């Protein structure tokens, strides 16, 4: 007979899984932060200043596909907050936060539709990261004229998103599945 109350064994198992989740999230956030740091050390410039590759998006993207969205979201949030405060200051952190939240929600939605490959999801993520930041900029300096920046931001977001998407695709193929248990 199976009792309705969890046995001590199950309880400790659940406890273990919570601990495990916290530890894993911390580790992955640290990994994502390192990606951010690498990008600060070696800024990738494609001729257009201010345009970034967004290497750190690799981590939440892979997590989105290999674990679940809760890890990806938590890791992303921690990474953005820390990287913002460490490397670019409070105000720029707000921009990043807006961008990455919008980007993450779009990526999650597109992935849930199951109609897009990881490249499409990543591309949309890149574009909406930039558009999210643009929205904050429009409010911050209250200039709807900034909309003229949009083509550049869309194109650079597409390029960055596709490159990161290719990276994530390769990573998902190569990393052992056991890693994400």
């Amino acid at each position, binding site marked *: 007979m199976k009792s309705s109350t969890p046995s001590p064994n199950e309880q400790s198992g659940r406890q273990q899984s919570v601990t495990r989740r916290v530890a894993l999230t911390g580790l992955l956030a640290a990994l994502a932060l390192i990606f951010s740091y690498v990008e600060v050390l070696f800024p990738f410039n494609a001729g257009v*200043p*201010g345009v970034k590759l967004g290497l750190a998006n690799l981590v939440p993207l892979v997590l989105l596909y290999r674990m679940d969205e809760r890890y990806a979201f938590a890791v992303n949030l921690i990474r953005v907050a820390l990287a913002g405060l460490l490397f670019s200051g409070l105000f720029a952190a707000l921009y990043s936060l807006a961008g990455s939240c919008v980007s993450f929600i779009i990526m999650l939605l597109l992935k849930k539709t199951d*109609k897009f490959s990881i490249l*499409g999801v990543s591309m949309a993520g890149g574009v909406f990261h930039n558009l999210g930041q643009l929205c904050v*900029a429009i409010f911050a300096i209250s200039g709807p004229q900034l909309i*003229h920046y949009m*083509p550049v931001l869309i194109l650079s977001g597409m390029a960055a998103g596709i490159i990161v998407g290719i990276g994530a695709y390769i990573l998902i193929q190569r990393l052992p599945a056991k890693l994400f248990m």
Partner: protein
Amino acid sequence: MIASLRKADFLLFFSFLAIAALIAAAPLVRPSGDGQKVRVIYREEVVGIYPLEKDIDIEVERDGHLNIISIQNKSVYMKYSDCKNQICVNTGKISRAGEIIVCLPNYVIVEIIGNGEGGGENEVVDAIAK
């Protein structure tokens, strides 16, 4: 990897391209008639509105940052900016209504407005301009 691409990916790709192209092309459709004005904005403050016909250099010095906007031969460009990324300087010349030069780091916006727009109250050559 190519095999993993789906129809929706391509749709998304081309719709992004189309949107970018549309927005980029929008100002080109506007006529470049006479009587256009140049509006210079710092944050929410209108620094001044200047006629496009008259050659002039406008210095905008706010918060310890300097931008020099130059109107020459019915077009406007950012002659100098002390900002880090120099996007505004690299934007080059603009001459049609709706076109814009933005210097995000210094909060300076230069835009061309049609003859009907803008109103008259700010239409004085600012004291900073020379």
